[in-house]
């Protein structure tokens, strides 16, 4: 290049910049690498200094499984993922922009006449997109053929033109169901729920199997992992016309679910328009509570940290949980973001490769 007049370097520079460079950027587009760490991670929903050493994967989620008639949420967001591990645990850092922190999941509201109304909305499938919560999900391949290629689509079954799934009428009941094709094929689902489970510090650990009949399981292939206790329940009184409990303090943190520490009998001293949580939550125990978490929404961004044992134990751990028992192996997963929606979610095509380094 030294002997070329500067003006003649222009076309070569253009060629190098615009033709060669894009091909160099193709590598490792959808791979997340977990690096080994030397210090313990404190789950606080903040990007602590140690996370800066971990390689990140940035992925755009811009697809929705259906157009809900009252959906007002995100239609696209860029999710950043990082992972680290030690001898016993694997950790994940998830961040994505979401301008609205959605907390009002089916809250009770005091009416002008003194009665209480649980605020709910339904789209054409019977699901909420207004009075709900923000959620995030990991979907991990355990042993389902096609997952590495199709990602979560391998278990997604939308209603057909007749409004049916597997020959069963689902019109007005749902947009789709999750199930795998054959018996023995399972997928691990880590469902982070900002209102119901984030305050008690666990992810709702679930799994998907081949069940495609609501008579066998009302949620078809979708199941909660085995649990020994805890969970979330509607906060509703015996007469089903108002809340049964409320929080000791209503301070913004405790306005939308009722944790055991805050739970107290409902006494109505409220003003018209006041809200009471429509749900009460306890941390899961057993396999369903395998994953610890802390998520924080700040300045329009959700930052979520998760922690799970590399290898879980329990009666059906190998069926219900992905087991990171071979750190030289490639694992596959997919992610989705629920913006204040019950079932509608942003997703991406294909699967992400996960490796340990």
């Amino acid at each position: 290049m030294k002997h070329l007049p500067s003006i003649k370097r222009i076309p070569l520079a253009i060629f190098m910049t615009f033709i060669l460079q894009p091909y160099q950027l193709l590598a490792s587009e959808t791979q997340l690498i977990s690096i080994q760490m030397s210090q313990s991670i404190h789950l606080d929903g903040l990007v602590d200094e140690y996370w800066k050493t971990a390689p990140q994967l940035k992925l755009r989620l811009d697809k929705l499984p259906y157009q809900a008639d009252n959906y007002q949420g995100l239609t696209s967001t860029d999710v950043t993922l990082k992972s680290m591990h030690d001898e016993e645990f694997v950790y994940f850092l998830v961040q994505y922009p979401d301008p609205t922190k959605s907390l009002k999941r089916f809250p009770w509201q005091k009416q002008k006449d003194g009665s209480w109304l649980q605020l709910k909305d339904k789209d054409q499938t019977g699901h909420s997109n207004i009075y709900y919560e923000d959620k995030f999900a990991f979907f991990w391949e355990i042993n389902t053929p096609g997952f590495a290629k199709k990602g979560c689509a391998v278990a997604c079954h939308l209603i057909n033109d007749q409004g049916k799934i597997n020959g069963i009428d689902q019109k007005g009941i749902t947009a789709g169901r999750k199930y795998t094709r054959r018996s023995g094929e399972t997928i691990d689902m880590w469902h982070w729920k900002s209102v119901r489970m984030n305050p008690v510090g666990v992810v709702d650990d679930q799994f998907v199997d081949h069940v495609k009949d609501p008579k066998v399981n009302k949620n078809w292939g979708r199941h909660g992992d085995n649990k020994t206790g805890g969970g979330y329940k509607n906060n509703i009184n015996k007469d089903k016309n108002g809340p049964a409990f409320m929080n000791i303090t209503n301070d913004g943190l405790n306005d939308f679910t009722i944790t055991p520490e805050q739970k107290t009998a409902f006494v109505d001293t409220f003003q018209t328009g006041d809200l009471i949580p429509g749900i009460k939550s306890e941390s899961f125990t057993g396999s369903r509570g395998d994953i610890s978490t802390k998520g924080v929404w700040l300045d329009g961004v959700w930052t979520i940290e998760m922690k799970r044992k590399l290898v879980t134990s329990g009666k059906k751990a190998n069926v219900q949980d992905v087991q990171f028992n071979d750190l030289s192996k490639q694992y596959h997963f997919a992610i989705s973001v629920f913006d204040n929606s019950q079932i509608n979610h942003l997703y991406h095509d294909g699967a992400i490769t996960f490796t340990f380094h």
Partner: protein
Amino acid sequence: MRLNNLSFHSKLGLSGLLITIILGVLSAATLIGLLYSSADSGFNLPEMDKVQAKYSSSLLVGAMKTSMYQHVTVDEDIDLVADWVKQGAINNDFFRDEVMLVMENDCQSCHSRSSTMTGAIPSIPLSNYEDIKRYTERGFSWAHMAKVAHIHLLGIAMLMGIVTLILSISSYQNTIKMGLICVAWITLWLDISAWWLAKFSTSFAYLIALAGTIEIASIITICILCLFDLWFVIPAFFREKNNN
């Protein structure tokens, strides 16, 4: 008028055009490599069985092997549908029990009249036998051929016309210019013709791959030669005689 005699601004403008054409052709080659290989990233060489599937199989099986391959759960799904098509694509128990199961699992989320998912194609439903049957004819139908051929022929002709005209005012030897211009146009005609002929013999799939490769290579070569002539001095051996 010769390329190397143009003003600096004309050279810049033409360089932008030629580089953009190279980028466009490389993008097309990347897409072809992705559609006709098992890879989902990077620059790949097309696999012949996928090229044959696209042009010699039914549209349904061809799509499952190429453009829709990423949505097919396992390769056995393609074999199953291909067998059914080979047996005459009859509305029998095998269709209802096996083929429809594959359609439900792999196709109908997007390909149904009522689908509203992102990227749905409700205009090409695969919801019932009648919907599916129409895509089981081997190779390109007259209508499909006429549709894709006129788009490609007219579109590529515009591109080819521009680059060959630019080459014609370069300072290369006439034999080089004539050779490249003829090769570019002839391979375009052979490529598109072979799409249709592959309906009758799978061996024409090799002609598609060969002619397509030469066509792409000739366009890129023409662009690079013209860029070189715009900014550098052509070695005497390649230069036209009256321009020495």
